């Protein structure tokens, strides 16, 4: 498999986006990461609409829940309703640790749920763990 792993990061916070990109870049495998800042853009990207007409179907989606406009919960729900997108694993990566968000996300079909740790090193290791599991351990469709 020579093709790089394609990841769509849905994250409105550029600081987090940079941190995540920075951390994931350190991985062994070639990574092709796209970043969108809100739910509407995420939908457009996934459905290849508007500015994202040439976008590639991602292998994995890292999804923040609290987004401006259309939020991550809606994006997840839409993905699970859409035949082409239903199979894409979605890792919810959010600062929320509310029980309702956790349970709601899994019910909506999230593949896993990770709360962003407050501490930098913990955050970095959480992202590393995601990378290690989804890019190395897990088999992606």
């Amino acid at each position, binding site marked *: 498999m020579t093709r790089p792993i394609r990841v769509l990061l849905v994250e409105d*916070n550029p*600081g*987090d986006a940079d*941190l995540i990109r920075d951390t994931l870049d350190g991985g062994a495998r070639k990574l092709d990461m796209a970043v969108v800042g809100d739910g509407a853009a995420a939908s457009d990207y996934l459905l290849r609409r508007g500015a994202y007409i040439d976008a590639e179907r991602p292998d994995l989606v890292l999804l923040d829940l609290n987004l401006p406009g259309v939020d991550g919960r809606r994006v997840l729900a839409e993905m699970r309703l859409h035949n082409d997108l239903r199979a894409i694993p979605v890792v919810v990566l959010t*600062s*929320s640790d*509310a*029980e309702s968000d956790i349970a709601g996300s899994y019910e909506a079909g999230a593949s896993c749920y990770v709360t*962003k740790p*407050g*501490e*930098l*090193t913990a*955050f970095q290791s959480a992202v590393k763990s995601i990378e290690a599991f989804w890019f190395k351990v897990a088999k992606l469709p």
Partner: protein
Amino acid sequence: MDWLREMLSADGFMPHGHCYLWRPGVLWLHLISDTLIALAYATIPFTLMHFVRRRRDLPFSWMFVCFGIFIIACGVTHVMEIWTLWIPTYWVAGFVKAVTAVASVPTAILLVQLVPKALAIPSVENLRATGEAVAASAAQFRALLESAPDAMVIIDARGKIVMINAQTERLFGYRREKLVGHLDEVLLPERFRAEYPERRNAFFAAPGRRSIDADAGICGRREDGSEFPIEVSVSPIEAPSGLLASIAVRDVTERNQTQARVRVLAIAAQVVDAAPYAMVMTGPRGIIKMVNHEAEQLFGYSRDELVGQPVDMLLPERFRDAHAGHVRAFSSAPKKARTMGAGRELHGLHKSGTEIPVEIGLGPVETADGLFTLASIIDITERRAREEALRRSNAELEQFAYVASHDLQEPLRMVASYTELLGQRYRGKLDDKADKYIFYAVDGAKRMQRLVADLLAYSRVGSQGKAMVPVDCGEVLSYVLNVLAEPIRQADAVVDVGSLPIVQGDEGQVGQLFQNLIGNALKFRGPTPPRITVEARLHRGRWLFSVTDNGIGIDMQHADRIFEMFQRLHERGKYEGSGVGLAIAKRIVERHGGRIWLESRPGEGTTFFFTMHSVTRKATSS
């Protein structure tokens, strides 16, 4: 002296017997007759004297004295008649006769003068007739006296009771003979007695009808010493024996009570009308009997529109059927006041058709016309609104705390992460000062993160709480001790756990409570290894938990402060933490309907106590 001797001498005279030629027959006749007359005359004055002395009321008693003297004198003349039969002291006999004459003539004259007066003395017949008339009038007077509704006491000018009626006996509890002939003061309490004779004298000095009404506060006194309020009226009576006073005494106890009751009723009516909440009284069949001013205001009807109407008119239609049943239940239930429809929303119906949320208290009122029901109705529209506002405000505040801390976390994480990233990537590449600045920034951001996290945890006790279920405290505590295993080991602490019960609670929060208290004990440990004891016992139907340590203790003046948010008693750096642990503990206990407090001695240790609702007791041990 010769003259006197001459007088007493019999010389020169012949004894009177000589005149009778000393014939025994005529001598004896005179002797016996004179003796008998003298003896008889000697006894008559004694009899008269005795009679006069016994009949003090006798008119003309001096006449009897005169008669007595006259008869004695006559008797003595007869004695002299016997004496002169043999001894002819005719001078002495003549003097005695003269004395008798002196006694006789005035007596005769006086007797003549007495005849018209004596004739005026009623004859026995007359007297009987008069006596009967007097008796009749006395009987009438007595009947009159007895028919009087009041106790009647007739006194003379010296205050002596002449007559009383049966009412007096009844009212004062005395028997007639204990009053008649005694002073009337006995009918007064002692405190009135001193000034009373003066008043009585004033009455007899200026007789006339007088009364003392009940307001004067005078009292009668019964034989047993008890007192009762009276009203008195006094009238003079002209009697043959002199001026009397008739005193009518009326017991006003009952009237006073009635008046007091009437006054109380009047006040009660005013109170009811002025009551700040609506009152509606209904009869046994739910007919409105009375409403107060506030009820008129609340329901928008006038008094006239309500009284006599069924109370159902004040109820929204949907409650009317059920209400009839409640009315029956209330009428047959134990007769005591209660709150109506506990736990249910009650509504009244305004004249305009709008419904008014109300709270109603019901009280039974026993009346002569049956069991009435008094309903006190409080319009709780405003209270509802206030409660709702408070609830909303609390919820908003919690939401605010939650959202604020949540939303604060995001940018804060950026500050913390990137300053730390700066530290990671650029330590040693800039100068020493830069390293120090970066350290301060990272430290500040981390502390801020900690505070925000604690604030979030605190707000979550209210906003994220779970339902109350039976929680086995023993199990929860062993879980907590597992979580705290590392700090316990590091502190070389021993935790003794007694038998812990099952309580009604939120399992996660009960765990957090134990964790915070034990964590606190570990944190504020003294120089010796911590020894922590967790126990529980039943106290007044609740579980009283205690967490005791041998730590540094706390000055009791700070006992309340340490349960407040972010209150720290020690300078930063000495003990870790933001000071939210006990605030959260308090919030958890309060959410569980309990109370938390502590007892402590600086340098010896602290015991935290808290209470929880019990479910059952289950023995567990560590």
